[in-house]
């Protein structure tokens, strides 16, 4: 009797562990799962914290050697308050004579501040195709989380650097987008 009950519980738990694990991963971002919890971006959190000091956000841009684009930030830095949404621009120009697909990734330093850097919309992770000789503005719309000033380990953080790197990508014979390694 007890064995049957334990057996049924065990099987039930095994079945339940799949959605439970998925929920756990999505809330904590364990093992690199993207956190798509949109309550972080609710309008009540996008209020500038006027009593806070302004944080300097510095912009950096890099391209892979295989990518013949010029990619530069249009402003060296902006000073933002936590909770204040800000817009920043990068300009990319395809200097070659062929259409090229680029794929961008980004990094935030110092590492510990990365968790407070929230991007509403940008141009990373999705392919961006530039025709030969084309130049285009690429905006980044972001804000520093309003909980930033409450974290004691962030007290010494006055500058956050946002660094974008563009890589070259192309479609292979199967129609999959693959990165082109640096030659």
């Amino acid at each position: 009797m007890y064995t049957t009950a334990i057996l049924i519980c065990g099987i039930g738990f095994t079945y339940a562990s799949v959605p439970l694990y998925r929920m756990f991963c999505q809330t904590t971002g364990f093992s690199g799962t993207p956190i798509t919890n949109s309550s972080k971006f609710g309008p009540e959190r996008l209020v500038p914290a006027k009593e806070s000091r302004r944080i300097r956000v510095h912009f950096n841009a890099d391209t892979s050697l295989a990518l013949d684009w010029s990619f530069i930030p249009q402003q060296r830095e902006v000073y933002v308050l936590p909770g204040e949404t800000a817009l920043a621009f990068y300009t990319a120009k395809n200097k070659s004579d062929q259409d090229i697909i680029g794929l961008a990734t980004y990094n935030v330093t110092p590492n510990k501040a990365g968790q407070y850097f929230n991007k509403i919309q940008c141009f990373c992770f999705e392919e961006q195709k530039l025709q030969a000789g084309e130049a285009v503005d690429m905006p980044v719309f972001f804000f520093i989380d309003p909980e930033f000033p409450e974290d004691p380990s962030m007290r010494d953080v006055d500058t956050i650097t946002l660094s974008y790197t563009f890589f070259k990508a192309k479609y292979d014979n199967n129609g999959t987008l693959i990165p082109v390694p640096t030659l």
Partner: protein
Amino acid sequence: MSFGRPPNISTFKPTPPEKGSFPLDHEGECKQFVKEYLECLKKNQGNNGNCRHLSKTYLKCRMDKGLMTPEEMNNLGFQDDEIRRTEEK
């Protein structure tokens, strides 16, 4: 994840943006607003507070031209923008 790496509590994980990627403005339809915003930033030494109204007009331009899914300005952090602008001054 690799085992045996030195303990580093502050690893950075790139996360996707909330609203995804901006479609590229190939025709430069909103380029005028970009210029205005960047000039404002230069004049204010990068102080974002004084130039937010211009970023609002830029995003509005994108929404009008179909380069951005329409969104309430409140959800993008532009509540009481007028009041704040006069306070900053």
